[in-house]
């Protein structure tokens, strides 16, 4: 500790502080982060690169890998969009209306954060499989959810559900009622108020929730594999391809699929963040 405090103010890349412990805490953080996260991820990139450009291209352009990536990213985008709409609705209902059991429902929204994905997976399979609670009701109409791509979507909606609710809720709660009242007094219709007074400040927060839900859904594995049926080209998600490659001891192939997934999802997250920054600028607040 004293060794760490001796360094105070010694460097120019940080502001002086009277608080001791920078060296120690910064050291622990960077060491743990490097050992647990950064070095292992570097190994992933290194391993993928060792496959060579031709092998990487062959894998990236193979129909099975493309179908899996399309499903993982497509279903994640769709699930995050559905959660965006219902997240706004749920946040609105929880903040603005009072109904019996509201606090209980509010607490329950976090269930997907707390419930292990494997538990969610077998539960959703039991509900939406053709012989399940809801699956058997839909089967006579020829609608199948379990063991199809729709099953993947259901699982991703489940695990992404809390994000938009939790990012939008505080913004809605802090919104000043005076603005709405002023708009109403000036003769704006309720729809107009929702559209031009309530929605603009809420949208950037909703977008943050959307990106979080998307990022979580893209890589999701546990809740999906039980309900998806995992049919190659149809309901096989990208993380499962990694598992299959590993089981065949094709480390480089697994690493290539992993890097492709990370690259695509970081590019999309970057795109959404830029979009959100533009949104914030246009709507004129920080």
């Amino acid at each position, binding site marked *: 500790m004293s060794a760490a405090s001796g360094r105070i103010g010694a460097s120019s890349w940080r502001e002086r502080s009277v608080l001791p412990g920078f060296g120690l805490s910064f050291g622990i953080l960077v060491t743990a982060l490097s050992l647990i996260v950064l070095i292992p991820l570097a190994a992933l990139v290194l391993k993928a690169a060792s496959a060579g450009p031709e092998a990487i291209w062959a894998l990236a352009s193979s129909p099975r890998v493309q179908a899996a990536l399309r499903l993982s990213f497509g279903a994640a985008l769709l699930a995050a969009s559905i959660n965006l709409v219902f997240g706004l609705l749920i946040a609105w209902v929880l903040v603005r209306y009072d109904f019996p059991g509201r606090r209980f429902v509010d607490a329950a929204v976090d269930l997907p954060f*707390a419930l292990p994905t494997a538990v969610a997976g077998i539960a959703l399979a039991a509900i939406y499989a053709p012989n399940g609670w809801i699956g058997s009701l839909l089967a006579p109409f020829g609608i199948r959810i379990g063991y199809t791509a729709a099953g993947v979507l259901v699982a991703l909606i489940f695990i992404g559900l809390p994000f938009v609710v939790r990012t939008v809720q505080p913004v809605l709660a802090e919104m000043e009622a005076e603005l709405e009242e002023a708009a109403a007094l000036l003769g704006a219709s309720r729809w107009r108020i929702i559209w031009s007074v309530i929605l603009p400040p809420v949208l950037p927060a909703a977008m943050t929730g959307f990106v979080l839900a998307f990022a979580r859904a893209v890589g999701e594995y546990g809740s999906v594999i039980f309900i998806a049926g995992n049919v190659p080209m149809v309901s096989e998600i990208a993380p499962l391809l990694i598992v299959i490659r590993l089981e065949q001891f094709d480390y480089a192939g697994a690493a290539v699929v992993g890097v492709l997934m990370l690259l695509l999802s970081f590019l999309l997250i970057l795109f959404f963040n830029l979009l959100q920054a533009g949104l914030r600028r246009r709507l004129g607040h920080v």
Partner: protein
Amino acid sequence: MREGALARRLLIGLALTFLTLFLALPLAIVFVEALTRGWQAYRAALADPDSIAAIRLTLIVAAIAAPINIVAGIAGAWAIAKYEFRGKSLLTSLIDLPFSVSPVIAGLVYVLLFGAQGYFGPFLKSQGLQIIFALPGIVLATLFVTFPFIARELIPHMQSLGNADEEAALTLGASPWRTFLMVTLPNIKWSLLYGVLLCNARAMGEFGAVAVVSGKIRGLTTTMPLQIEILYNEYMGVAAFAVASLLALLALVTLAAKTFLEWRYADEIAAMRRH
């Protein structure tokens, strides 16, 4: 100026229907399926030696991961929240990085490092050490996915508290450690506990990352979520849902404790803002 009673009821109804379909039903079916053959079958499923071994392993992994995450989380939050330095925002996003990495990739990276054909595989073999398909690999994969949880809760709280309390203690002659233990820790205890709760729920329930590194050797390297998968794939529905019901109970306890803390923690933050 508000929506009419009908619109209000319609919106509440729509939200509750969505939540029932996607939250209440999955939770309910876990307990219903676990108990379809009665208490006897439920208890027999949980008394199975493999299931007991899985419960033990899950507790061991969580018990190892928690203290490491607590130390790294507090250190990380202290460095980020208490000082201004270049590259701080980059470091903050790096802490959050595991949230946007697939759990399967979190497991994969350790196989690439420590697996039989991994970078350190031959060295580990010559030393007679095993990381993949053994406890250390499971702990590492768990640490990867749970890394951000505690720091993420502590950073905003410590930032909002500021440095004044610590500076006062130091000025009055308290040692750095004493300042940390008597001033900082009591200030952040609720958000720390909150982070530990979330971190623990994820650690005990992690599936994808652990599935990749565990090798799923029955009774040895299967955690509870992996045991659920094995039982489910063998069409032992009652047993799978019985183990799942324990994890679902853990989730409910976590949610209840979290809700209680949010309530406490909100009071404290409100009190803090008042002065």
